[in-house]
């Protein structure tokens, strides 16, 4: 009848990176998003397919007609990019805002998960969900338009960089927003215009000079151009410029988000 020896609960040791915390946060983000998949995953697929249908039908309609196939080939990769970037923006922004509004942000702030780990987990979740949404759309679009990538490596690189960029921007948005109203303002006045007006639907030479110069400053233009190159093998701007621009944007946004997380801007105040 020896008395049961109860060991005191020891703090878990971990090295420089809290792998369990990182993985748990990542998994939570993914599972939370997929819980709303009817709205978050299939809704965008349907609306993007509608865009494709409308463009196809409107182009056959023209008094000149003829170039429907090339127009659809041009628009489809743009829609896939839009699906990727809008989903990753929504995931990271909605996640932070939801946690703040419901008061469960403490569950993320209290455990031993540092600002960098939080950033990495959220960014990885945003990229995964963005790529998932984009892949589903690409596969379904393949029934109507040829979507076999011509340059798979370029496609992957640009898709990941664009998803990451908007995922990081979404974190800033999510930190800044205080109400759901702010969140929908960000989508309506920032993400959608920036994407729609960035060569998603029309070639660059359809624009007058001034608008063209503005478009060339828009990072989402390079995201769409790079992904389009990955699918079709032809780009409108220099790929190297696009790659550098996207990398630079990611570094800048990543630094900003890291600083904000470390200071606890609108999280710990």
């Amino acid at each position, binding site marked *: 009848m020896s008395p049961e020896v109860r060991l005191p609960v020891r703090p878990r040791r971990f090295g420089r990176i809290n792998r369990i915390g990182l993985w748990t946060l990542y998994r939570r983000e993914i599972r939370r998003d997929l819980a*709303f998949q*009817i*709205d978050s995953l*299939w*809704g965008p697929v*349907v*609306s993007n397919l*509608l*865009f494709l*249908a*409308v*463009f196809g*039908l*409107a*182009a*056959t*309609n*023209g*008094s*000149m*007609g*003829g*170039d429907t196939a090339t*127009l659809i080939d041009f*628009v489809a990769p743009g829609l896939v990019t839009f699906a990727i970037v809008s989903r990753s923006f929504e995931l990271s922004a909605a996640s932070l805002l939801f946690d703040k509004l419901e008061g469960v942000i403490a569950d993320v702030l209290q455990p031993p998960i540092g600002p960098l780990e939080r950033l990495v987990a959220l960014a990885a979740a945003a990229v995964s969900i963005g790529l998932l949404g984009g892949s589903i759309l690409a596969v379904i679009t393949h029934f109507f338009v040829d979507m076999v990538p011509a340059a798979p490596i370029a496609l992957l690189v640009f898709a990941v960089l664009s998803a990451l960029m908007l995922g990081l921007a979404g974190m800033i948005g999510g930190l800044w927003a205080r109400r759901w*109203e702010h969140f*929908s*303002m960000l989508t*309506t*006045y920032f993400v*959608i*215009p920036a994407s*729609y*007006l960035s060569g*998603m*639907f*029309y070639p660059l030479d*359809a*624009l007058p000079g001034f608008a063209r110069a503005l478009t060339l400053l828009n990072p989402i233009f390079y995201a769409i151009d790079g992904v389009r190159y990955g699918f079709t093998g032809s780009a409108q701007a220099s790929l190297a410029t696009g790659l550098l621009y996207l990398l630079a944007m990611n570094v800048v946004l990543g630094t900003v988000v890291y600083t904000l997380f470390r200071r606890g801007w609108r999280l710990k105040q």
Partner: protein
Amino acid sequence: MRRPAGPAYGGAPFGNGSIELMQVTAPRHRRVGPINWIGLWTLYHKEVWRFVKVSTQTVVAPVVTSLLFLAIFSLALGRSVQQIGGVSFAEFLAPGLVMMSMVQNSFANTSSSLVIAKVQGSIVDLLMPPLSPGEIVLAFAFGGLTRGLAVGLAAVSGMSLFVPILLHDVGMILFHAVAASLLLAQLGILGGIWAEKFDHIAAVTNFVVTPFAFLSGAFYSVERLPDPWHAIAHANPFFYMIDGFRYGFIGHADGSLPAGVAVLLVANGLLLWLNWHLFSIGYKTRP
């Protein structure tokens, strides 16, 4: 808590110093005739204030979106589609886009209001007062109609900065604007009655309203569509709204106008009856 002091509430006037016993009389109930005008007006007023208070989201945002659509479609297709229905592509497109944002917002107004009321439990504020099913349906429908018309007016004004807006037949414009917004407001009531969660109503919006609105001939002339699409378009009630509305502006219709007017009137009547019936049996609104 401060209460209004007065004989009806049995309270003493403030600052009197002495306590007086006052004769307590119960508040009398208000008499309501066949129609509860105050209730109808109050509910309508509440429905309108709901969207006016957040008008950047409910009026400005849809206008911005439809202007974006105008820009991208004109840029992408303006060169290959030069003449359509006797006018330029942008002139053809503008009325359709206005109608699309009107119907989407009328639907959103009533459906979101009902679902929020159900999810948050404030639906009792609707069921307890002496409001008849017909009064509830009408107040909601007129609220949605008001939002639709507000969005439509704002969108037309926004577009007139970029595209010449022709006015061929103002009567047809007004009829189709009102009939279509009312129809979608009523569909929103139906969706709101049925939905139990926000996901449900998002699904109806994503998989029913948006596809119907997009494939209704706002972006192309239905006459020139290849065959299966041609028949499908004519079976879509949204086609008649957009076609008739656009006729009012540009004077060209793809389908038959009397048929469109009849479809809209019949559909509105049927939905009014259905919503009235569902509210009176308390389907999914009363526990």
